[in-house]
């Protein structure tokens, strides 16, 4: 099949965004193994490395927890507040 790019795939999924972001990546060092790992494992492309920081676009988060598991303590990540965040209609 013609593969829909990531932004189109995410566009098909419903999100009810929380105004308070549930991810804090400010302690990750760009270029570090942990930063590379979170970028690699995130299926939603939430993380982006700039020369000075690792940025997280929490609004696209699918809430799997893969990033937290590979960040060796360098990430603050919680589930978003109740009723907010991703809302699967199929699952």
């Amino acid at each position, binding site marked *: 099949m013609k593969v829909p790019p990531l932004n189109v795939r995410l566009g098909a999924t419903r999100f009810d965004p929380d105004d308070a972001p549930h991810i804090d990546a400010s302690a990750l060092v760009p270029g570090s193994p942990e930063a590379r790992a979170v970028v690699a494992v995130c299926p939603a492309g939430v993380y982006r490395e700039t020369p000075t920081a690792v940025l997280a676009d929490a609004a696209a988060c699918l809430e799997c*927890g893969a990033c937290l598991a590979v960040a060796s303590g360098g990430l603050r990540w919680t589930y978003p507040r109740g009723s907010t965040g991703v809302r699967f209609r199929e*699952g």
Partner: protein
Amino acid sequence: MSEVDVDVAVVGAGPAGSAAALRLAERGLQVALVERGDSPGSKNLSGGVLYPATLAAAVPSFAADAPYERRVVRHVTTLLQRESVVSLDYTDSALGAARGEAAAAAAPTTAPNAVTVLRAHFDPWLAGKAEEAGAFLMPGLKVEALATQGSGSGTRVVGIVSDGSVMRAHAVVAADGVNSFLARGAGLRPDPRPDQLAVGIKAVLRLGEERIEDRFGVGPGEGAAHAIVGDATAGVAGGAFLYTNRDSLSVGIVVRLDALVASGRTASELIEHLLGHPGLARYLEGAELVEYGSHLVAEGGAAMVGDVAHAGLAVVGDAAGLTINSGLVLRGMDLAVTSGLVAGDAVADAVQAGDTSASGMARYAAALEASPAMADMRTYARTPSFLEREGPYGPWGQAAQDVLRSAFVLDGAPRRPLRTLLRGAARRQSWRTWLGDASAGWRAL
């Protein structure tokens, strides 16, 4: 016993939590079933093959009203290479495959062996059964932490904390899924290692009922489950699945986190590699993507389960690491249901005996240990290390392709006998690969 708001607080309305709440309510206890999603299932995702025997015994109306998609009558195991597809296709009357048109017309009155489900549709049904039994469902509420007294090995769980206030309970059932934040936050479970976790990435593709039945060779109401290894994950340790829903397909990959990081690939690239794979085009062509999601899978096997009972706390389902990935089947929902039911009975016994101390709750650990769920966890205990071997991800598929090509691709050169072909294919891999895979496979299965 001290003052409480409810007898038992169950956190998480997935299959584990809803099964626990159902059983606790049936036993006459006052139960709160707390779920962070706006409705049960809205945060949950699985590949979708449920083995419903235990659930159908607990919920007798399963065959009549469970919102499953199709009954699985065809299990296909595929070695996928870039240029070839080699499959083992299994159908059997024991799977409930209809024989003839009359059989196809008859609606099943007993639960099928396996069914496909979509969690956003399925989980609300099961939570509804718990509610009917008397459990109090509280959706849209995220539990921040366990309320505890004491510390270290003297820690006692006395309730849950949500929105800054404490709901006190004689016991808490942590059914909060694979991340298991509640038990970890109270220091009662270790953080899982990346090699004990896999990330599952899934797309739901709308295709229409007729095209599904044509392409997968199944009748109305019947479905197929394809397990795919090899180039499905571009050789990264893990596998792919392709399951039929009523009018859509569930297709995705499950790859181990440590292997994914080591591979230098990204998760998004790998799912794109699968969806665009020429070997799957005949199934996926023309389908429309309607949802994209991801979720972790516990892959640590029996070794990851650890302590499931503490003073005032029972840990069930994925939160306790109860998942089996044998390479051919991925099971977690049925183990979640079994552990939830077992915990429901044990916790009801403990509360009714007025003893939810560590020794009172040890009933649950003992009952889980004696359950078929743990027996299966032990049977497949070696599978995780088997899946660490590279054989299933490259060499096997390559060898199958080599043998079948030599047998079926006629290029005018004289054919060689099959035994020579097999020997030749085997030689192209180191004997260590084969011997190692064979002995690891034997021990795992």
